């Protein structure tokens, strides 16, 4: 019995999926639901590139079994593309060249969006903490931090 049927609400749509017991959330999101904004980096929770929201909380989708998400609500970047805070944040990232290779950008945007919702005027320290779980190997952190500050600020107006 290494298979099971679960239903995950992803980006507002109920998805009944058949999974292997060892499948992680990232496996289902990428391979079954074709949501490629969710990247796989280290697979051990060290890089944070696979960050998504589960029931509104930022989590690493490589550190969660898909089975643990049965009946829960998952949000990926694809589900926020029309969200006003995300649209603004994304635009500012583009204007400020906050993406170099772009591999960490979806996760950075998810963490930024999560921060912007709770904190309209975050300090630099708060921004650094918010993205502390996501590694940018291009190390263009300052453009990212400045963009988040700008994105959060306008998000409140």
């Amino acid at each position, binding site marked *: 019995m290494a298979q099971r049927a679960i239903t995950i609400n992803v980006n507002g749509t109920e998805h009944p999926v058949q999974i292997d017991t060892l499948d992680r959330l990232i496996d289902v999101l990428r391979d079954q639901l074709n949501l490629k904004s969710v990247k796989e980096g280290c697979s051990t929770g060290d890089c944070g590139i696979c960050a998504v929201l589960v029931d509104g909380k930022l989590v690493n989708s490589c550190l969660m079994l898909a*089975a643990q998400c049965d009946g829960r609500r998952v949000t990926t970047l694809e589900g926020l593309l029309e969200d006003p805070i995300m649209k603004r944040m994304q635009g500012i990232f583009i204007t400020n060249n906050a993406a170099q290779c772009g591999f960490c950008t979806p996760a950075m945007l998810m963490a930024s969006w999560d921060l912007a919702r709770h904190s309209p005027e975050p300090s630099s320290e708060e921004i650094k903490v918010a993205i502390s779980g996501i590694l940018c190997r291009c190390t263009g952190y300052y453009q990212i931090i400045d963009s988040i500050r700008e994105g959060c600020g306008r998000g409140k107006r």
Partner: protein
Amino acid sequence: MSTLELYSPTDLSDALRFLEHGGGNVTVMASGTDLLPRMRRKQVSPATVVDISSFTEDLRYIRQSDGTIHVGALTTITDLLESPMFYGKLSIIREAGMLFGAPQVRNVATVGGNICSATSSEDLIPVFMALDANVKLVRAGGERTVPLKNFIVGKRETALEPHEMLAEVSLSPPGGHGWAAYEKLGRRNMLIVAIVNEALSLTLEDDLRTIRSARVALNRVSGRIPGLAVKTNDFLSGKKVTDQTITQARRVLASELSLTSDFRGSGAYRTEVAQVYLGRLMERCARQIGGPS
């Protein structure tokens, strides 16, 4: 296709019933942030995993009664940080929580999982040991409470019996003239496994100079096993807080640690950092209590 059997209990009693009858090679999983990568690397190969994240209500709480704080095993690190309980004499828990992993790990990683993983990378173990915490272990039809220091019996080895699981940690703030503090060294500030992770709970007599009790705990006392620095704690008891006492205590600490080297740091380096932290923690605690440092 994996052959892993995954059981998702509906509540605590369902989980305990399953553990009672589940057979051998069963592992309890909370969030899975530690277990999952280890299963994928084949460092562990349980036949059955009981996923207790399937229910949280029974074991996700922070309650206070008679000065003791009870933390349910499925309480997340974010829950600790958002709780009003961990300020003042228990701000050590917030200190450790803020250096634990990163936000998206803290959002799911649990207090019980951190303790049951029972190795040197688990940040909360030294903190809870310094606070002389107890853990409540439950099984179908019974429970027992044991001191955390007796619960960790080796690297990734605990006193849990096959049918038991950890349900709660209970702890009290340092009494009287007391304070507790925490230091963690990693190669960067966040999202890092500690090279040295050290906690101290210090209580002084009414003269604010004499040590009534000192409990130092580290992520490693020997090999990769977290524990109390028993000899150092014995040495400090009854001494005055002076530079000389701290210098002597640092020597005792070095003599009782038996630390190994790995890619994170050498045994000698770890020992030196542990000594520096001992001095720093003594000073921080003594200053907070209001005595001479």
